[in-house]
């Protein structure tokens, strides 16, 4: 028997770049929709994921805050931007857990065998988590004003602060997506996330001034991504010269996206 060559798919099947893009956006929208439905279906999870940041606000505002003097502003005004960043950073663990779950329940196996865009599962997960972050940030804004946060900057600057924050949260989601893809299961994904999160959020100016830390730690705290984003949102939300700080924050976000995003996509394609 002679082995014939493989048939070649009809040319009309080969999509144009615009067609590819349209498919990518459509598929990502479908996956976003299904992830958001998941969040809505488990209101307990949504409730408790906003309880935690609220507890942090109350804890630092009323328990630790009195012992932390901040020159030139009230502690609550110092605290709220830090809480914002800490909350979205901790929220990124959700990205890694969700993805690890999809991977190990067999759902991703189905997605891989569908004629859909290869990046839609990751895009749909990170966009859904961005939407979730917007809600959490709105809740904390409300809580912040309730416990005494006062706006000294312009509303526009405050919104710019939220913009920097959400951009960072989106970049971080891709980083934690990579962790979710590397983890053998959802529990491990969670455990793997914290050793990365804790030094970044606590060795930072999120809750206490960096000047109170040993000098060797100060450089790290002020220049690592969470530290830079905390400093930037704090300046934008309290008024004052932002200078190159904002660019540094945006650069960190894009840097994380550009490096870890493709790594996550590559890992997604290979993971079995």
């Amino acid at each position, binding site marked *: 028997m002679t082995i014939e060559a493989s048939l070649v798919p009809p040319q009309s099947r080969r999509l144009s770049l615009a067609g590819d893009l349209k498919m990518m956006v459509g598929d990502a929208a*479908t996956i976003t929709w*299904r992830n958001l439905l*998941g969040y809505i279906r488990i209101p307990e999870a949504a409730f408790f994921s906003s309880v935690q940041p609220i507890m942090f606000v109350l804890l630092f505002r009323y328990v630790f805050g009195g012992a932390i003097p901040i020159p030139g502003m009230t502690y609550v005004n110092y605290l709220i931007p830090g809480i914002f960043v800490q909350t979205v950073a901790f929220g990124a663990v959700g990205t890694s857990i969700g993805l690890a779950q999809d991977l190990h329940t067999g*759902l991703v*196996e*189905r997605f891989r065998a*569908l004629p859909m865009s290869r990046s839609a599962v990751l895009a749909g997960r990170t966009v859904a988590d961005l939407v979730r972050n917007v809600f959490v940030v709105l809740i904390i804004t409300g809580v912040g004003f309730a416990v005494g946060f006062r706006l000294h900057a312009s509303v526009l600057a405050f919104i710019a602060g939220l913009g920097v924050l959400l951009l960072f949260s989106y970049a971080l989601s891709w980083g934690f997506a990579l962790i979710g893809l590397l983890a053998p299961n959802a529990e491990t994904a969670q455990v793997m996330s914290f050793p990365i999160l804790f030094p970044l959020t606590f060795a930072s100016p999120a809750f206490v001034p960096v000047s109170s830390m040993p000098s060797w730690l100060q450089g790290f705290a002020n220049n690592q991504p969470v530290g830079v984003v905390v400093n930037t949102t704090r300046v934008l939300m309290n008024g004052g010269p932002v200078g190159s700080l904002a660019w540094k924050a945006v650069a960190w976000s894009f840097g994380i996206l550009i490096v870890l995003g493709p790594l996550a996509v590559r890992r997604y394609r290979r993971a079995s």
Partner: protein
Amino acid sequence: MTEAIYVDGVTKTFGGDIRALDGVSFSVEPATVFGLLGPNGSGKTTLVRILTTILRQDSGIARLLGYDVATYPSYVRTLFGLAGQYAAVDENLTGRENLMMVSRLNHIDRTDAQLRSDELLHQFALFDAKDRPLKTYSGGMRRRLDVAAALVAKPKVLFLDEPTTGLDPQSRNGLWEVIEELVAGGTTVLLTTQYLEEADRLASNIAVLDHGQVIAQGTPRELKANLGATVLEIGCIDLATTARVVEILTPLSSHAPHQVANSVEITVDDGPRFAMNALRLLDEEKITPTTFSLREPSLDDVFLALTGREAEVVPEATDSKAKKKGRRRDR
């Protein structure tokens, strides 16, 4: 005519030393059911994953409707539907939302997707449960939804990896009927199973897989002719009698009798006639069996006949095998 599925010398090794597939070759004619029969760990899922572009083979050719799966994976994905070994459904969505999601990911527009989802929900008797979240579904309902999801795009080739494992008999019969309808409508189905009965009922051709190799291939009729159509089981009062029964029966059949503790199993082509002969001979020897029964051959019997040993099972499956054995002895 182009084969619906064409596999030639496919190999796949995991982690350097696990030979999951060791040169598998077969082809499947369009609009037929092909049964891939094998015990746990024989490589069935690995082959399905290669044919559905999820995995890439190390060597060999795999084609769907003439298209090479490794060369044109994204085109090939528009040709088939897959219901994998474990139901791949979203726990947080309702049944209908699950089908809508898969339809949308197949790029079916919203209106058509809604029509198609409802049609499938009716076909798989899930319509009444369509708006319930999957958490409330039974295992059988999940499995049916999973198969329905594989059918949303009306694929020309359908892969079903152990579709009836864990299904109750009624759901299983329902699924068999759906498969028969699909094939009558021109769909090609590749089905993996651990049950000879299932392959026999549905498949026009069967390949028996063992340690990643095809150890037998043919129509159910051909396989049965080689293996014997029925198994005769004779229970005896003690081991000495059992050994004597083996001696008596050995000259009667082309297949060797096989002693399992206090009973003798023998694969035979013409069950009733053989049974009459056997009874007559035993009576002449004044041996009265404690049990005497004819049954359909099981996968274990197939393996015994083909390889001279029982189907080896990977550890996770030893439990169910032990149970099956226990059950058989009870009969």
